[in-house]
């Protein structure tokens, strides 16, 4: 993602040829790294002033000369980072079913810190330098990263980094948290935690924590905000801090941002199924055109499903339906996106508010306006092929029984209730099969909903 800006020191010509009726020369440019190519991109320490070599072609007579500035593409930038910084690679250890692995690396490919959390179903990457966001979420059953960025630029230096990006503005406007550097904090119940003082809102602090369940294809994120205004001598009016919590999810199911990305949004009225093949209009932050059709209220079961039309591959997002005001869907600069707008809240001094989000990956699904059933396949392990069945809906019972069909033979599977901090609960069962079945189907009846999802080899 990172692009570097560099100044040319020396140029060496490799060859000259004619293409499209114009004379062109291929050259090696020996450059000194000046900064990142956008002020809002983070550049790793120790890189400024280092030299590297890049290849370029220029059209005559507009020669590349010493003193010219060049923007290095991500591959060139990463090569320069590898050349000058020692990157610590991650362990090749793979967790099995019922295990999880949390790793920290000193640098990712952009030379920044990264944290990796994985179990047998998913692998997530957290980037503390960019708002402690979940920047990647790999579905290990399919091998695809379901989140996406695009790298486009918006007004005010905003870079479309992608992943799960939080905002404290009603319309998902990014400046509050998206680019902040988060500090690692001690975690109590979760696997990882980060903390950050929100600069633009004195007294506001965020504690962000992450949890991966060892036996479910689920990543939980919990953002807690506390407000401690400074004491002043004057009798200050005890003000409350207004919070509009809006996490945005930039995605491309199956690693694709094409029209095959579908949104399923359950509302009181119906299950809305939408496609994002062509953007009607695009708009800037801070104003512009809002298509009312994209905004959906009363998302009562507290989930939105994002799915690939042809593959059944999917990612579900969970939020607390009592806190969720609406979900709105958009598409800008080639990146489908979803915003979960929470109800505005007043945070009193010494007060604390928390918001949870769950991200679930799967290989097949069935969905109604009240229920969601997902079958997830995990990464092959020495012990076999792991699968999980997950249900989210309006049911409140302690457990549910699903019917599992394996190559024609069927049996009952008990789905156990699992709570997710700040975003309700799911019912889940996971199991290991010796070999991959030709067909694996899961059926579940809850109230009037009869759900059936099937994975085929």
């Amino acid at each position, binding site marked *: 993602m990172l692009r570097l800006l560099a100044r040319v020191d020396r140029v060496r010509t490799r060859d000259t040829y004619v293409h499209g009726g114009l004379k062109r020369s291929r050259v090696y440019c020996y450059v000194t790294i000046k900064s990142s190519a956008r002020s809002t991109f983070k550049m790793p320490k120790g890189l400024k002033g280092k030299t590297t070599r890049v290849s370029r072609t220029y059209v005559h007579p*507009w020669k590349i000369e010493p003193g010219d500035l060049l923007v290095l593409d991500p591959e060139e930038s990463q090569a320069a980072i590898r050349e000058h910084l020692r990157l610590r690679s991650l362990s090749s250890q793979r967790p099995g079913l019922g295990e999880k692995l949390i790793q920290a690396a000193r640098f990712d490919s952009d030379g920044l810190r990264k944290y990796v959390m994985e179990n047998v179903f998913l692998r997530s990457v957290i980037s503390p330098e960019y708002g402690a966001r979940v920047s990647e979420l790999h579905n290990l059953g399919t091998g695809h990263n379901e989140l996406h960025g695009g790298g486009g*630029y918006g007004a005010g230096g905003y870079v479309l980094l992608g992943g799960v990006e939080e905002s404290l503005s009603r319309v998902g406007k990014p400046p509050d948290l998206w680019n902040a550097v988060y500090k690692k904090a001690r975690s109590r119940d979760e696997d990882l935690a980060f903390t950050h003082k929100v600069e633009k809102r004195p007294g506001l602090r965020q504690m962000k924590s992450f949890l991966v369940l060892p036996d479910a294809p689920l990543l939980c994120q919990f953002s807690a905000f506390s407000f401690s205004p400074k004491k002043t001598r004057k009798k200050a009016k005890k003000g409350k801090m207004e919070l509009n919590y809006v996490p945005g999810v930039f995605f491309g199911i199956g690693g694709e941002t094409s029209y095959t990305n579908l949104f399923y949004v359950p509302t009181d009225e119906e299950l809305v199924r939408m496609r994002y*093949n062509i953007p009607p209009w695009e708009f800037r932050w801070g104003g512009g055109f809002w298509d009312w059709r994209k905004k959906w209220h009363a998302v009562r079961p507290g989930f939105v499903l994002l799915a690939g039309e042809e593959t059944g591959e999917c990612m579900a997002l969970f939020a607390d339906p009592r806190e969720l005001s609406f979900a709105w869907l958009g598409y800008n600069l*080639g990146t489908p996106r979803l915003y979960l707008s929470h109800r505005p809240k007043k945070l009193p001094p010494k007060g604390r508010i928390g918001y949870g989000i769950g991200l679930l990956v799967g290989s097949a699904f069935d969905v109604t306006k009240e229920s969601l059933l997902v079958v997830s396949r995990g990464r092959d392990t020495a012990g076999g092929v792991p699968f999980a069945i997950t249900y989210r809906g309006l049911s409140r019972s302690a457990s549910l029984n699903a019917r599992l069909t394996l190559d024609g033979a069927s049996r009952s599977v008990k789905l156990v209730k699992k709570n997710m901090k700040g975003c309700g609960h799911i019912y889940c069962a996971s199991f290991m099969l010796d070999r991959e079945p030709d067909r694996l189907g899961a059926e579940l009846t809850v109230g009037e909903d009869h759900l059936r999802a099937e994975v085929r080899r």
Partner: protein
Amino acid sequence: MKPLFEPLTMGYDWEMAVLKETMESVGEEEIIGLSDEVRNALPWCRVGIDEDLLEARLGVVKRWDELVRKNTEYMEVARKLAARKKCVLLPIGSRPTEQCSIGSHIHTGTCSDLPRALALKNRMMRYVPVFVAIAANSPVYRFASGEYKSYRISTNADWCSDPQQPFHPRLGRGTWGEDITVKVWWNNTVELRCCDSASDVNLMCELTLLTAGLMHGLSDDLDVETMECTEEDVRWTAINRWRAAKYGLQAKLIWDGEERPVAEVARKVIDIADEGMSVLGAGRRDLSVIGMMLKKRQTQADFVSAIQRSDPDPHSLMRTIATIYEKDHDAFKKYLEIAPALPAIEAMSIEAFLLSKITREMSAFEVGVRTPLSPYDFDRVIEKLEAEGKVKVEMDEKWGRRITRT
């Protein structure tokens, strides 16, 4: 009858990006600061800002030599002051990696008769594609490239240069934001908004001259009792506008019922503009850059695309273009000298184009917004495609028509 333009004057608001070394905008405050400094240095200048862009305005200009002098002086001063602030002044039709279309809006005055100006707007409609083709300068926009030479026009400049609709001169009030916008009540001008921001200073002057000359040439015998435009004019102008945005000067336009290369039509435009240009103290000999462009069918967009072939990454391309224009203000002129002549291209049909954009269950709006066709003409195309079995149209009570390619 009194002339519509009395006296004949010209001017422009020419938008340009003001960028940091990193190619991100310096921001509104810095642009306001730069604009203040330019105004202090050139008191006659009316430079200002428009959103995140510097907008050069020379005020009311009556003579060609005055336009060239003021334009040259403005660019010299603005570039110098921008360099002092360590930023780059870059007029270009779009920023390749952002949503920011940038235009050259050309004003012709002085006009106080709104109904007759509306009649001129109707008459000017068919000439819009010629200007779109000559001014094309946005071949990379929001990461997309290769389909249009003017992505800015293909997206209607983000609501700022919409396809024109005819008005009855006695009933219309004028609108804002169409390719030709009648600004008689507040600016005393008729504005041409469809040109991409010109990177070349000389071309900007020539486009201004040509527009004023053409509007003068078309302003005789304007009839306010009837609407001069026909259905055919509207249909073919829409298709020609799309072709011009797609192929630039390589386009072939439908003109008087025949398919003709846009360069040939542009020469007719120059003939019409000749008298007006002489009123402004100029002649066709002064359109040297446009003349060379028509001869080779090359546009500024082709120049950017030629560089892009060697520097395909849009982020890097932007920096390269800025460096070229920073070091060589006459780069486009030089390019015209060395570039080969391009052939005229047979256009794909509008039906085939629309079909290529239809996937599954698309709303009519999503498809229709891809062309400047009027809703009536768009419906006819969809009906034709449906009759040929190429698309299926379903009605949905909430979404209206949903179109699927079969």
